[in-house]
């Protein structure tokens, strides 16, 4: 099984190989796609959590930065960028 975005190291670009769309609600899935998070796209995890929690995750996608929860990041499988 490929590693998931929620445990990917910060600052390293990865490519999204698969997303468990079935485990996301319709609205959640659509919002992810509106952000451009879909199979084949490269993203870079940038910041994770604050003082009291490992949630949420900020990542860059193209020229945009988005914030998602670890719960959703765990539904995104990634492979090293460039593969």
């Amino acid at each position, binding site marked *: 099984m490929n590693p998931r975005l929620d445990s990917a190291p910060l600052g390293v670009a990865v490519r999204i190989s698969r997303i468990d769309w079935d485990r996301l609600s319709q609205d959640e899935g659509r919002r992810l796609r*509106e952000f451009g998070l879909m199979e084949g796209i490269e993203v870079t995890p940038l910041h994770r959590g*604050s003082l009291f929690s490992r*949630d949420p995750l900020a990542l860059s996608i*193209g020229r945009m930065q988005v*914030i998602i929860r670890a719960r959703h990041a765990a539904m995104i499988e990634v492979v090293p960028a460039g593969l």
Partner: protein
Amino acid sequence: MTNAIPSIALVGNPNAGKSSLFNALTGARQKIANYPGVTVERKAGHASFADGRPMSLVDLPGSYSLSPASPDEAVTRDVVLGRQAGERRPDALIVVVDAANLDNHLCFALELIALGLPTVVALNMLDLAERDGLTLDPEILSRELGVPVVPTVAVRRRGMTELLAAVEGAIGSHQPLAAEIVAPPATDVALHQRAREIARATTLSETPVRRWTARVDAVVLHPVAGFLILLALMFIMFQGVYAWSEAPIGWIEAGFATLQQMVTANLPDGFVRGLIVEGLIAGVGAVIVFLPQILILFLFILLLEASGYMTRAAFLMDGIMAKVGLSGRGFIPLLSSFACAVPGIMATRAIPDAKDRLTTILIAPLMTCSARLPVYTLIIGAFIPARNVGGSPVGLQGLVLFGLYLSGIVGAMIVALVLRRTVAKGNAAGFMMEMPRYQWPRFKDIAIALWQRAWIFLRRAGTIIAVTTVVLWLLLSFPKAPADGSISQVDYSVAGRIASGLEVVVRPIGFNHDIALALIPAMAAREVAVSALATANAIEAGDDEEAMAQSLSERLQGRWSIATALAFLAWFVFAPQCISTIAITRRETNGWKWPLFMVGYLFALAYAAAGITYWIAVAFGLG
């Protein structure tokens, strides 16, 4: 098109710089209202074509697509489709895209262009894209999209004339688009692919630039340092609210005192003079005094929002908010609620999860809004000694105020925790949000927004508060007490008799007749409690010069025990005394169920908190 003036809608993604563009096109000539039936803000304004013909401009809520995820986004979709009740379908669209984020923003642009209305694309924030090392070709973009593209830098008013000329041209020469462009890509994956292709074709060169914003974020979003910065900013904000407002508050007080003297000198003694001096001026003046504090608080919130920091704050707070079942999204509405719960509750619309949103609405009134400040300041000034705690530089009055804010926050967290396990049970809240780039807030945008907030507050002071204080003055002044002095005017009046009834209920928690009297009109708005006390005080003092010279806080000191004063403060941490908040909750939750629930639980908490405070204080000998 009929001979009505053309209506043009600005539409685009969040963070595309739409509001700045709207401000640049319309100046300060804007009208803010709500779309009928929903509480989505409708921002409209006017601009004119080169030949002087007027056009009306509407700024639609930012949206990612025509599939809405929130009531705001639904309005955007319905307006551009011509389905919004009471709203004419726009004659043309200005689609605003961020030049540095074409990959993403072109998706919505493609959907909008496919609607077939005359459309012009504003390639906005071109300067920031250049700063990021991007060179774009607007002509290629225009060819690929099949509509005119105008480069703009809204914050410097660059490209505005060209944009309006292009809109005029688009309306004039409009023909239905070719069929292959009208059909948008069928799936959102295909739509994104198409958007990326166009973005790639438009980008002539891309020089990697080491962005300073990445270095800023490394500190600002740092798990520890970032949190300390957030706390420091909040501290500065609340310090600023008090420290910087002192002088302007003094001017306003002096102004109202002068006004009272002028009216007293120029009107004959009697009903009208009493009504104006003791009712209207005393009451409204006691509330307008808080305008400086409200403006300073809003100034901070607007600056944090415009700079892009607010989303960082939401990121940092998400972990804590998640522990009580909320999300970082809720931080922005709750922070706004420190100014006023009404805009705070309206801002919850950005929270996609229904239960998360409902909980945030229900706890928003627990954030210490600026309307409580008049009450807190008066009581603290009168009853808490102005000395430092021990040998420290911390003032006791400030500490008590901080404690009141903190009680509200802690109370809200506990209530959220309980609600999310009972009436607002649901999935763990989600948190998906775009992080905007840092930007220097633009003076004009902030000034316009601040003016709009000030106007809303003044209108409220001029209507609800003026009416309630005048009604209260009437109820306090009649019937006239017998002249033998056996009973005071306040006790003899209609209001006094009603208060005596209420007093029975609130006596166990230490409240006296004054408070019972102030609580009734304070249902309209909390700060009315202060003007009610002021009005009752003014009537009771009557023409007694010595009593007139006494300030309100001096008079209260003589009439209330410390335990009663503390109980009164505790009451206002929780009491839901604000008609506007109840009304906005009804509208935002589409019914009476949740506002009634909110009023019920908050009154119960207020009663308990005041009671416990009173009994403890009495046990310590402060009764």
